[in-house]
């Protein structure tokens, strides 16, 4: 049915590929200029940021169009531009960028969602005094993220990856006056750094084995067959090949960035940042960078797989992803902060993407990434609109009845919520989640991930219903009445809502355009796509699960409008489970008594060593030198000075004695002279006589 076109190794780079570097460079330059602006220049900074990302969007769309045109002509585009950055002896460290369907899709998504969130931010952050700083950081983030996307070198990717982490830190701590925000920023930075250490190790190992850090380079890249064969021939112990071990190390980095268990703890806390930041960085793009990274190095992860089989690395990715999906969804059920619910939902959905990558390949994971980026950005911006309308209130128990106060926000939020739940047919989440479930169903290793993911889907529908009912249903339970947000915030919501619906249609089983585009195949439209074995049944089952979740949520929470002090409906039914979920299954506490306690203890040991041992050695050396100095001083004052002083005294006394002879009386001198003459004469006389 579908004929496979193999990727052409390296076409001569087209003009658009040559200038691909401009896409990240323009926002970065804008960030640099904004950094130099005065805080008062609000309009300039916003114009600069929005203008720069618009340029990036334009270029991204041109790049996308170029790849699309190539694909329509039956040619899979993969154009790379490389240059040597450092030359050490015979080893080169090359950097470069790549234009292929994967990067083109991601570029278009990041710059488009970025532009919408930038516009939305103008309304959201309008009254903040650090308006200019905000847009400076946001532009820097956009540049770095686009840099991650286009990188053709794992080193360049890592640099942009770290820049993204830095801007994430800066933006989570944007309101650094609040201790919680500062602590959350620190936590995010340190937790993702743990993953990045492994990533760095994997990168160094890769370079040691293959001598290159470039992904694709006319057959000489690290992801191309020659290098993969080298990696597969090396054994790293524990039954892993070097390819598998490096893949796992890189996955550890991706897990840190994408909030996979056990490194997910930073992402919910990151909600201390402004809501547009949560939408752009901690929902749509940065956290998806880990998924994108795995998609990018997929040939490495999948290297050595037998036909229809899977590799150790991909199996680990799948299990971690599936576990995270259920784990985070469970916690999301019992959260009361509107943004925290969404944050755990993001962690859970990232788990879906990872599982999709592990079981179904690049296209399945990436499709969910793209659709999720749109509907999760929509949900976050909707939540921002709600928070804005409720004067900063974030507790869902203190909201309610916003359906009538904020009708447009409600409409778009409901679309986002249904897309996230996977409401059948007209919402994008349905198609992308179904792709993952289908892949899970056919996974050869185990069936457990399939059931986990189905259970996760049920939970997703449940907690989203709970949230929406709390926020929009019932009657108003907060303080001052809510108001609808300005148009500058609502228009991006509308656009995102549109895409949250229609985007699913590029990846239906009947017309698997997206996966064909990513994998470089011809996409055919055929209704019989639905007729594949068990697919309709799966779709039916998934629909059933979604309705079950929605129904359960509605039954428990619908039209109840409980007071904020009242226990949750679920809490009344199963209090211990509820308490555990509310406390995030005690992962933070576990880290507190293990890792953090260990570090505290280790720091105290180091402190003790510093003070007592090294401090003692230093003090001893200082004491020794002090003693030497005392001895030296004693010698100086008593021996050297003594000799010198004695000599001086003797000279002085002698001078005094001699000076006495100098009477100053001429007559005396003359008398002595005369006496001397007489004595002389007498001596002469007597000696001549003798």
């Amino acid at each position, binding site marked *: 049915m579908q004929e496979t076109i193999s990727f052409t190794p390296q076409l001569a780079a087209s003009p658009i590929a040559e200038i691909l570097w401009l896409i990240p460079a323009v926002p970065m330059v804008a960030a640099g200029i904004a950094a130099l602006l005065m805080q008062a220049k609000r309009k300039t900074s916003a114009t600069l940021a929005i203008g720069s990302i618009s340029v990036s969007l334009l270029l991204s769309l041109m790049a996308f169009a170029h790849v699309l045109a190539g694909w329509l002509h039956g040619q899979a585009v993969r154009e790379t531009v490389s240059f040597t950055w450092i030359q050490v002896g015979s080893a080169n460290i090359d950097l470069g960028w790549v234009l292929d369907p994967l990067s083109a899709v991601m570029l278009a998504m990041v710059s488009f969602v970025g532009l919408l969130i930038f516009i939305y931010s103008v309304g959201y952050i309008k009254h903040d005094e650090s308006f200019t700083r905000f847009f400076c950081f946001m532009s820097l983030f956009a540049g770095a993220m686009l840099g991650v996307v286009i990188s053709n070198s794992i080193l360049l990717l890592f640099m942009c990856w770290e820049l993204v982490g830095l801007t994430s830190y800066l933006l989570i701590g944007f309101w650094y006056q609040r201790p919680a925000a500062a602590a959350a920023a620190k936590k995010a930075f340190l937790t993702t750094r743990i993953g990045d250490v492994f990533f760095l190790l994997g990168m160094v190992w890769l370079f040691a084995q293959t001598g290159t850090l470039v992904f694709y380079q006319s057959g000489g890249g690290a992801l191309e067959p020659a290098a993969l064969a080298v990696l597969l021939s090396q054994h790293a112990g524990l039954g892993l090949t070097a390819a598998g071990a490096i893949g796992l190390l890189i996955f550890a980095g991706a897990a840190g960035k994408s909030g996979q268990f056990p490194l997910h703890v930073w992402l919910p806390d990151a909600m201390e940042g402004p809501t547009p930041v949560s939408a752009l960085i901690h929902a749509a793009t940065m956290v998806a960078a880990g998924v994108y990274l795995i998609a990018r190095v997929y040939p490495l992860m999948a290297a050595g797989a037998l036909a229809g089989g899977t590799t150790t690395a991909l199996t680990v990715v799948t299990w971690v992803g599936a576990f995270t999906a259920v784990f985070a969804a469970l916690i999301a059920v019992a959260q009361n902060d509107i943004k925290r619910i969404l944050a755990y939902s993001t962690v859970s959905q990232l788990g879906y993407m990872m599982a999709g990558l592990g079981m179904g390949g690049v296209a399945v994971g990436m499709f969910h990434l793209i659709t999720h980026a749109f509907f999760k950005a929509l949900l976050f911006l909707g939540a921002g609109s709600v928070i804005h309308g409720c004067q900063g209130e974030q507790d869902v128990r203190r909201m309610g009845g916003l359906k009538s106060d904020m009708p447009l926000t409600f409409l778009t939020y409901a679309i986002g919520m249904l897309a996230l739940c996977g409401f059948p047919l007209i919402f994008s989440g349905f198609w992308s989640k179904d792709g993952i479930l289908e892949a899970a169903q056919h996974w050869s290793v185990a069936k457990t991930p399939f059931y986990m993911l189905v259970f996760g889907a049920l939970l997703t529908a449940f907690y989203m219903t709970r949230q929406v009912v709390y926020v929009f249903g019932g009657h108003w339970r907060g303080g001052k009445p809510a108001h609808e947000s300005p148009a500058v915030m609502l228009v991006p919501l509308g656009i995102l809502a549109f895409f949250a619906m229609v985007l699913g249609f590029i990846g239906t089983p009947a017309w698997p355009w997206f996966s064909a585009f990513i994998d470089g195949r011809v996409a055919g439209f055929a209704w019989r796509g639905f007729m594949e074995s068990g697919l309709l049944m799966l779709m039916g089952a998934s629909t059933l699960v979604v309705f079950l979740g929605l129904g359960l949520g509605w039954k428990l929470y619908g039209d109840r409008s409980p007071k904020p002090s009242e226990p949750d409906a679920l809490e009344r039914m199963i209090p211990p489970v509820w308490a555990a979920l509310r406390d995030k299954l005690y992962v933070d506490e576990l880290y507190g008594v293990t890792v953090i306690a260990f570090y505290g203890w280790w720091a105290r040991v180091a402190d003790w060593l510093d003070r007592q041992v090294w401090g003692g050695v230093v003090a001893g050396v200082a004491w020794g030198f002090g003693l030497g100095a005392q001895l030296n001083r004693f010698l100086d004052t008593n021996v050297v000075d003594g000799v010198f002083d004695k000599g001086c005294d003797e000279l002085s006394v002698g001078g005094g004695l*001699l*000076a*006495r*002879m*100098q*009477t*100053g*009386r*001429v*007559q005396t001198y*003359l*008398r002595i002279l*005369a006496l001397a003459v007489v004595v002389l004469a007498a001596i002469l006389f007597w000696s001549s006589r003798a």
Partner: protein
Amino acid sequence: MTPLTSYLLVAALLFSIGLAGALTRRNAILVLIGIELMLNAANLNLIAFWRYGPHPELLTGMMFAIFSIAVAAAEAAVGLGLVIQIHRHAKTTDLDQMNRMKG
């Protein structure tokens, strides 16, 4: 008594007079005069030893005397110069009052 002895006696007398004058007088100029007398006694000795010595035909003794007189003249000039300067400065020629250079 040979003529030489007589000369030597005169010279000794002259030297003694000079020495006595130099030692007893307080006036610096008179001390200088005494010194001149002693110098001339020495000159007289030189001439006498030459004239009655083994080679009176050579001019050695005279040359000694002339050199001695020249040196004495220079010395006297320096001495008088000093005395005049001291007199200008201290308004006195009394040697007992010129004791500022004692150690």
